[in-house]
């Protein structure tokens, strides 16, 4: 049984600005969760807090009954992996070497990587469809290939929880669907996945569970069909949208029409919305 991710009243300030404000959210074990929200909503920060890269001022993130912040760094890196959006150049490193970095939390200071490590790197290269690229210089890869390498590196950590920051950014449609299909397969294989995504229709098409963040607060969470309503999209993103049914898979399909008059919700609105979330989430869970 795969453990679920729960955050409980997670709060984080940078300088004097409140970035994450009492966030409670859940991703069921072995499912794909999508973290949605406009730019600056705090999606990346929340992922960093869960991964233990930044320390929350208050609140906890738990995987099953393990408090992630209480784990030692190395132990945490064996449980949680983060595939970043940033695809900075890593001069001189080949694809297989980059993926092998994922073994960092397992390998000792003087010992080299063992047969098991090599086998795991090979498997992760295969899983991410990178076998043919393993000898290529990372710097020469396309954006989609780099995203796949970042994913493979995270998988080499053999995590139970996989966090991804905008894994479909800068990818063409084929690469986007490949990436999200891969995440769904990984989740079915027993991994709990939480990905920050921009594209609402992609999220609705692939995620089992969506969490909508605005101004550092959770304003809605639950099944995509229950959460992604025209009303919510108008309030959070400030655009008019119709939610249709996908003609092939029956999932929600979001068609944007125009920028909403009256603009986005303010911080005061998010507070009200956050109060309403629990009711929505509870309803979605029962349904």
């Amino acid at each position, binding site marked *: 049984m795969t453990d679920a991710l729960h955050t409980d009243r997670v709060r984080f300030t940078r300088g004097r600005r409140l970035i994450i404000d009492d966030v409670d959210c859940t991703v069921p074990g072995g499912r794909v969760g999508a973290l949605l929200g406009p730019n600056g909503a705090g999606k990346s920060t929340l992922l*960093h807090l869960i*991964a*233990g*890269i930044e320390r929350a001022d208050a609140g906890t993130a738990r995987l099953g009954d393990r408090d992630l912040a209480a784990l030692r*760094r*190395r*132990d*945490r*890196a*064996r449980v*949680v*992996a*983060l595939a*970043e959006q*940033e695809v*900075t150049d*890593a*001069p*001189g*490193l*080949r694809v*297989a*070497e*980059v993926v*092998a*970095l*994922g073994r*960092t*939390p397992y*390998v000792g*200071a*003087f010992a*080299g*990587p063992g*047969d*098991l490590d*090599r*086998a*795991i*790197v*090979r*498997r*992760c*290269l*295969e*899983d991410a469809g990178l076998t043919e690229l*393993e*000898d290529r210089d990372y710097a020469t890869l396309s954006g989609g290939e780099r995203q796949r390498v970042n994913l493979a590196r*995270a*998988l*080499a*950590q*053999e995590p139970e929880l996989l966090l991804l920051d905008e894994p479909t950014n800068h990818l063409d449609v084929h690469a986007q669907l490949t990436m999200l299909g891969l995440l769904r*397969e*990984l*989740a*079915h*294989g*027993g*991994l709990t996945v939480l990905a920050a995504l921009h594209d609402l229709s992609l999220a609705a098409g692939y995620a089992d569970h969506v969490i909508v963040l605005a101004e550092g607060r959770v304003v809605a969470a639950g099944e995509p069909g229950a959460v992604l309503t025209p009303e919510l999209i108008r309030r959070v993103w400030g655009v008019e949208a119709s939610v249709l049914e996908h003609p092939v898979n029956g999932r929600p399909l979001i068609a944007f029409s125009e920028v909403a008059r009256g603009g986005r919700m303010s911080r005061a609105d998010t507070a009200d919305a956050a109060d309403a979330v629990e009711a929505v989430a509870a309803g979605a869970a029962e349904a």
Partner: protein
Amino acid sequence: MTARTGASDLSSRQAPVLPTRDGARTAAWTVGLGVLLAASVVIAVTIGPAGLSPADVWASVLAHLGIGEPTLSPLRDGIVWELRMPRVLSAAAVGAGLALCGAVMQALTRNPLADPYLLGLSSGASVGAVIVIVLGAGLVLPFAAFAGALVALVATLGLANAAGALTPTRTVLAGLAVSAVFGAITSLVIFWSATGDSYREILNWLLGSLAGTDWTSVAIAGGAVIVIGVPLLASARTLDAFAFGDTAAAALGVHVGRSRALLLTGTALLTGALVAVSGSIGFVGLILPHAVRFLIGARHRALLPLSALAGALFLVWADTGARTLFDPRELPVGILTALVGGPVFAVLMLRNRGLA
């Protein structure tokens, strides 16, 4: 496709993923460079105004190690054992240490132009060393140099950071400013104390020179390379993890702040010991790690030891040139390293056009 990678069916896949192949290649390079270095040390000792053969050098070394009978005249033996051998070994140790420092700093600051000389550590160390020499406290020399290097490092990174994001260009500019100030202080202190040939002494500190090195120098530089080099080698995987930046390193379980502080302090300590022996020799830490990276890639388990060997080899020959090219006058060896290093710096700048 199986998502969770477990140990279950791994035995069926004998995966020849590259680390094995690379391991053999690294071993071959290590042995090759090691042999080349040993041979170079012996040959470099034979070069100089008094003609000696490699056999003479071996005879002297063996006699002093208590293995063979002394066959050389005391005068020639003294040239080998008291003059040239300590100088060549000091060059090797200083070269190895500088190359190690450069490789580590390049990884930690994610800056291809990082080097103890360019970031001002060497001039900071010179100030510390010169002040102690003027005050006449010889034993604390390496530690004073370390303190100077550390102050310079903090000043450079602090200045670059205060000016905005810690980009390679800003860091190098800040290093230039810090170098200028510490270089001037070094010159002032020497001038103020004014004993003997102060111009020459200033040149030796600012440009670096191995003239006058003895077995104590070998012990200081060589000891520092071993004592600090080993923990640096043990940090190879941590340095690898910095390749994708701080966030990625933290996600891989690295304690980013503590590791960076510890490792940079290590490079300051090593730089201090080296500068105490040789003054600030530039560009060795820049050139050699890049050359090695070009040949065998960027993984630090291979990069660090090979950079050290290549740095030793490079400085042994650069110093041999420095003491023989204009014989009987001596060139500060830093002039020769700069002659090679300046163009390398230019090439790196052109290759990293996107460098901010």
